[in-house]
Every structure is written in C-alpha cells, then in structure tokens.
C-alpha cells in the first residue's frame, strides 16, 4: 500500500483507499456534484446548441477558457480536466478521450473532414437532452456568460483563439510547436 500521494506531470494523482474515501466524503459533504469532463463538453456545445464548434483545437481551447474564465471565477466545481502544455498550447487528454467517446455514444455528431478545421461538432438530439439538464442547473449568470462568450470565442477562429490563449496563459505555450508564429507584445516599455 502506498503511503504518499503520487502525482504525474499532468497533475493526475494516485490515492490509496483511505485517502480516496476521505476525498470522496469531502465532496459529499459539500453537496453539489462537480461537473465531469463530459459535462464540460456538453454545456459548452449546449450554450449555442444550434451552432457547431469547428475543429478539435477550437473545442479544446474553448473548454479551457470556459474553465479558466467562467467556471473557476464563478466557483463552479468541476472534475479537473488536467490541461497540460502541449503541441498547440493547453491540452487535456481527458477532454479529447471524452469527446471521442461522446461521438461514439451518439451524444455529439461530427461532420466534415476529420481532424481538420472543417470538422464540425454539434450535439445530437440525445446530447441536447442530456446537456439541457446540466446547463439549467448552472447559476443564471454562468449560463449567460457561457452563451455570450461562446459567440466571442467562435468569432476568434483558430488563429485568434490561439493568439489569445498564448498571450494570456503563457505557461501553456511552452511546448507549442507553433509558438514562433505568435509574438509576445509587451506594452509599457517605451518606444523601440
């Protein structure tokens, strides 16, 4: 039996049985169930259910921004998607695996050329039903922010959203294969 909690580079932790039990009872005491990774994808797509998200990169960055800029500041508890710096910035293996499972489970429909910016992800009828319950349980201001920022993020496109994420969350840029395309612009240093 392990006596210390082990942690992987992406933040994944291994608990022994006692520690896990105490962790789970902590969650129970707090009442509200945290949103699971699947729920994160569901509510993001549901925020504008009639419009798809194009491309896995956009979807990944939008889940990231939703966690960082809406759910965390508003105190909405979620399963940690474990974002790590990766080839195109923040990336979660959990989110990617969950997305693929959700497509197979017919919660999400994927159309257009796979693994390209044209691949469109949209909720299916079953997905909408499942997402609706999760979405409606969110506080009203969170729902409003989600509906509004989904538009704001979609409008950036892949290039714009990467520019935004690299600029604001610099630590996730470290492993990026395309970071040289995105310049750091630092203001307040005087004229060059």
């Amino acid at each position, binding site marked *: 039996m392990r006596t210390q909690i082990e942690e992987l580079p992406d933040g994944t932790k291994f608990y022994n049985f006692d520690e896990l039990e105490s962790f789970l009872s902590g969650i129970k005491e707090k009442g509200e169930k945290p949103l699971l990774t699947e729920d994160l994808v569901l509510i993001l797509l549901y925020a*504008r259910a009639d*419009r*798809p998200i*194009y491309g896995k990169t956009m979807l990944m960055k939008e889940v990231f*921004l939703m966690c960082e*800029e809406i759910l965390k500041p508003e105190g909405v508890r979620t399963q940690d998607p474990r974002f790590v710096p990766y080839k195109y910035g923040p990336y979660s293996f959990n989110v990617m695996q969950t997305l693929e499972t959700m497509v197979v489970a017919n919660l999400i429909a994927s159309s257009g050329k796979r693994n390209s*910016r*044209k691949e469109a992800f949209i909720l299916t009828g079953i997905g909408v039903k499942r997402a609706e319950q999760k979405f409606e349980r969110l506080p009203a201001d969170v729902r409003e922010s989600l509906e*509004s*920022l989904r*538009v*704001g*993020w*979609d*409008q*950036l*496109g892949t*290039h*714009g*959203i990467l*520019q*935004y994420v690299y*600029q604001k969350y610099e630590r996730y840029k470290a492993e990026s294969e395309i970071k040289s395309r995105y*310049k750091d*612009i630092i*203001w*307040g*240093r*005087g*004229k*060059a």
Partner: protein
Amino acid sequence: MRVRVLRGEEKKYFYSTRAVDVQTRDGTLHTPLRALSQSELDAKARVPLTVPMHAPVSGTFKRMSSNDVSRLFLDNDFVENQIQSLENRRQRMQHSSLLFALFQPSPSAIADHLAQDKDKDKFLRMTLRLQQEAGMNLITVPWVGYSASRAIEEFKTLESETEVEPIFFLDQSMTPDEIKEVSPYLKDLVSSDRVHFIGLLHRPVRKTLASCEALWSSFKDTNAAIISAGIERFDENLDDLSGIHLKEFIVGDILLADVRRIFVGEDTEKVPKKPPEFRIPNIERTLRIFDKSTLTISTIQSRHSDDWIDDVVNELGEPQLKHILRSRREAETDKDKYDVLTGISKTHEYLSSQHEVQVSREFISKGETEEYLGGKTVLNSGLQRVNRGLS
C-alpha cells in the same frame, strides 16, 4: 423569409430613412442595422479580444483589384485560397442570422479585364461558384458594369438557374435612368417573393446624389431590405462624420462598412502595408476612435480629454486595455503594436456604432427621426451640406 417596411420617413432636401422588419428562421431583424464586416471580425482577433460582437447580419466585402481578377481567371491556387478564406469567415460569422459575401471588381478591374460581356459573364460564373463552394446560403451578384438592359437579362438567367437566393447588387453611381430601368424587374422579383434583399454598392453620396434620389424613390416602399455595402469609414469633408450614420439617412437598411482606412491622418495619406522601417509620425494625429455622442471618427488629438479611453475600455470590457491605450506612443515605431491599436479602434467602433444605430431605429420606427437628428449636430449639418451639395 418575409420583409416588411414598417415606416418610411423623409424630408425633402434633408433626409430619407425607413424601418424594415426582416423575418428569418432565427427571428426578426429590425433595420436600420449595422452589419459586421470581415475586417471588423479580423480586428477583434488581432488584439485579441473575446468580447462577443453580436451581429444579426455579417458580410464579407472583397474588393477585387485588376490583379485579383486576372488571378481569378488563371490561378487555381488563388481561387482555392479565396474559397478557404470564405469558408473560414463563414464559420466565424456563423452566429449571424444572415451571411453574405460580395466579390466586387474595382472600376479599374472592370476596365482591364471585364470590358466585354463574355468576360463579365465569366466573372459572375466564377464568383458564384466560389460562394457555392464555400457553402454560402445567400449568393451575391456583383455589379460588373453591364448596360441596364443586359443586367436585367443576366439577372433573369441567374435567378432562374441558382438554387439559393440571389442578392443582385446595383452600383450607386448608375445613372438615374439606368436605375429606373432596372428597378421594375427587381421590384417584380420582390413582389413574387423570390428575392428579399437588394444590394447597393456604395459610392460617395455627394457624387451620386441624383442616383441616391432615384434609388430612394424607386425602392422606398419596396418590401426588400437594401444592403448598402462598402461604406467609407468617415468623411473628412463632413467633420469626420461616420459614413454608416450618414448613409442610414440617405438610402440603405443594412449597412456594411469598408473599414480599410484605420489610420489615415492629416500628414500620412496612406500607410504602406509593410514599410521597411515602420514609423508613424504622431499616433495622436493618426489614431481615430468612434465617438457615439457626435457619431464622428476623429483623431484622438482632437479630443479634449482622455475620457475616450474609459469609453473604449467599458465598451470592450477589458480593463487591461487602459494600459495599452496609455502606452499608445509605442505603436509609432512598432508595427505589431500599431496593429493592436488598429484592432481596438475597429472593434470598439463596431460595437459602439451598432448600438447607436439601434438607438436611431427606435426614433425612426416611431416617426421621431427629426427629434433624433436634432440631438446629433454633426449628422444634422452633414445631411444638410450633402443635400445642398456643399460638402
């Protein structure tokens, strides 16, 4: 889709405007409204900003130079790039209820490559294919300089052959006689519910007053929304009055700006795209910001205080912009920073001006246009000067 004129308002030698409702599958759009342009959308991404630019209508206005038209005819890669670029914009503009893209040849491109009707036909065929390939659900038909009678002939053919709804564009500089010849055909299409929009390629109002008058008389009661595309950002001859806000009271229900000139100052007529050594003489004389109270887009040098910074920060909801705007002189020698300021200026203008158009619509739809104009001194005087040919 259904379009209905709610109210038309006009005062001879002063203004003409109207309120129109456009019913779409996403709900009803109320005009006048400012459409979101690709240039404004790109500006937001360049800063970058996450603020949503809510836009019932979005449009891409691509000016085709002589070189572009030549490449359109001869270069497969160029055509493919145009399709990809349009697809990308269609995705980013997907939250709008109506989306269109206009590939408009410049006058020199028409003279160089589209002088003969067979070349005009070819250009139309190519740009229609391009829009279809990119998945557009409204197809625009640019003005390529046909005679009025030939234009009607081509419009008839296109209308019968395209599966999606066409938007036929007229040129605001067509003569009043040409407008009077073409308009009955378009009005017939509207009455028979085959088209719901009429396109209008914007030209400087003071140079086309007689044509504007003919367009207004022809279409003022027509149940189709007039899309005026390519409107200049501001008019130096009218105290930097915003072109969108002027055009709203001349002719046009859906207004699309041509926001190319961001930094055109008194001492820099045109900023080269990629100067070898980037240098702006004085950012205070080149950076322009929209002022919703006066409807002008004037240089910040002409502002009496730094209140405009708070206005921009509040509109865009990004407190850190204050630091950028206060450090703006750094952009005089840094192209990347200059581009960021460009982006902030355009994004702010769209959001603030779009809101102001909504305010004006309330007045127009209630028949209180004069009351609105009474509170907008620069616009009021601009309309009087334009209509008297004084600008």
